[in-house]
């Protein structure tokens, strides 16, 4: 019956990510100062949320729920999501999620989505701003047994199906799949809105549902990391950093041209 009714509920997976543009590096040790770095909604996920809201604006009578798995305080990100237009935010928060990898994250997301239930589309960002793994969407599709449309840069709902444009390396593919589906989107798909003050005020009345691992019956052995991070270091930069100066553009250009010829990177 639900298929005949078309799209009813969208669950958008949101990650709170390290704002990599503000990440500092200790140059002596090449260690990243992740602990003090500001965080924000992973921008690919923001595109996914924007797309869900646009679908609702077009079709009406669609619920947009967000879902976050975390061990941190994510209230600001959820408030932003609600201000953008999400109807309700779900968060599964547990200290035991501290070292989860992409498998554990997808497993908890899957359990939460099953509990939320009654969804037609799960929307994800293609990858995350900080770890840039791009695995969770696929793992989630596998765990939920969902048809998956990845690298989607354009999306339309046609009756009980999703029609999507996928950007591949050397072609653009238009694909159609019956709902329920999992869709992961690229940043090209849209330009996310910036919530107005009015929207922010309205959002303060919206509901945030918080679950702990136990509420979902999460099996701890399932969330044990399957990988081991051996080392994370800033890359060595061995650039010359030579400033070329001169009286005018011509003088600068002549010095630069000479340097490039000496480097052997121009000409035959």
């Amino acid at each position, binding site marked *: 019956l639900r298929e005949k009714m078309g799209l009813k509920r969208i669950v958008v997976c949101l990650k709170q990510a390290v704002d*990599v543009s503000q990440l500092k590096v200790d140059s002596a040790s090449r260690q990243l100062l992740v602990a003090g770095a500001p965080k924000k909604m992973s921008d690919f996920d923001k595109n996914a949320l924007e797309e869900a809201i646009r679908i609702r604006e077009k079709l009406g009578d669609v619920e947009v729920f967000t879902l976050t798995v975390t061990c941190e305080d994510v209230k600001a990100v959820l408030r932003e999501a609600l201000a953008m237009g999400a109807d309700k935010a779900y968060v599964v928060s547990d200290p035991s999620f501290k070292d989860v990898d992409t498998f554990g994250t997808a497993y908890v997301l899957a359990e939460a989505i099953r509990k939320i239930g009654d969804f037609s589309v799960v929307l994800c960002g293609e990858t995350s*701003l900080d770890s840039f793994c791009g695995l969770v969407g696929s793992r989630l*599709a596998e*765990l939920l047994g969902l048809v998956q449309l990845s690298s989607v840069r354009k999306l339309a709902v046609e009756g009980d199906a999703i029609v999507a444009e996928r950007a*591949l*390396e050397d*072609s653009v593919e238009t694909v159609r799949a019956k709902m329920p589906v999992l869709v992961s989107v690229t940043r090209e798909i849209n330009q996310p809105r910036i919530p107005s003050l009015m929207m922010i005020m309205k959002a303060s009345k919206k509901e945030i549902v918080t679950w702990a691992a136990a509420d979902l019956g999460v099996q701890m052995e399932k969330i044990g990391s399957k990988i081991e991070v051996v*080392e994370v270091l800033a890359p060595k930069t061995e650039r010359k950093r030579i400033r070329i100066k001169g009286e005018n553009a*011509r003088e600068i250009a002549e010095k*630069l041209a000479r340097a490039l010829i000496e480097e052997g990177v121009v000409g035959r």
Partner: protein
Amino acid sequence: MSEFGGVWVFSEKHDLALEMVGKGREIADKLKTELEAVLIGEGVKEEANELVRYGVDRVYVADDSALKSFQLEAYLGVLHGLAVSRKPEVVLIGSTRNGKPLAARLATRLGVGCVPDCIGLSVDEHGRLIGERITYGGNAVAKIGFKAKPQIATVPARAFEKSEPKDRRGEVVMLDVKVEEPKTVVVEAKPLETSSVRIEDASVIVSCGRGLSKKEDRVLLDELAVLLCGQVGCSRPLAEDRKWFGEWVGLSGHKVKPKLYIACGISGVIQHVAGIRDAKVIVAVNKDESAPIFEVADYGVVGNLYEILPALKEALKKQLG
């Protein structure tokens, strides 16, 4: 004694598979095991022989008309079935837009880890695969090991060089496969309306960012690129926001490794820099002397690209004769 054995390579893009074979051979030799390839498609006999010439000991071939083009469920079914019966120690999968979901889902179905987009692969003293990948938006390189087998890693195009093909022998095993029904219908597939030359192949790239005021002004870059037998590229805002270009250079776009990369009016956000880190020489031209691009450039010019580029073209023309 581990029950797992063999290093596998798979990519639906044959060229990428060949690139992985060289690295795969090295890993297989270190682990004292065989290098195997999985080949899925229709009429792929010649590709199988080629994989052998490049260093594969055994090629598993799933040849079926229904496998002619990539289908996630069908390809996943073949790889998963084979992985369950053969128990490979390492699986390397080409990190394409189709290959990555394939790897992630294979890892999930097998209940193991996956390290995506490895730009380096090695074996540690315990015989464990270590994948090296760029993370935190290019701020760091992470080395990641696995806790279970198969150890699944994905490898982007151009991460490793193809080795030299040799006249050598290997085994080709034809698989008897049941093809799973596709769950998505490809309505249309259009080749990308980009230039036929790939920017990854360019030895010189003249690239522009937001410092370029008008789309038409790219002619300045075109002229220099033509002189240097190179190509023109851009940063993400010019492609995604202004739609002046179809694709861009950067972590989320094309990762390039030219001999010379000239960044004009590009501020140098970390995602862009991560895409050019393998360039031999980087030149930055920017009006803003505090632009981060200067930190990662070999030669920096604080100046207006509208003056510097034409002057550089003239100077190179003169000096190169």
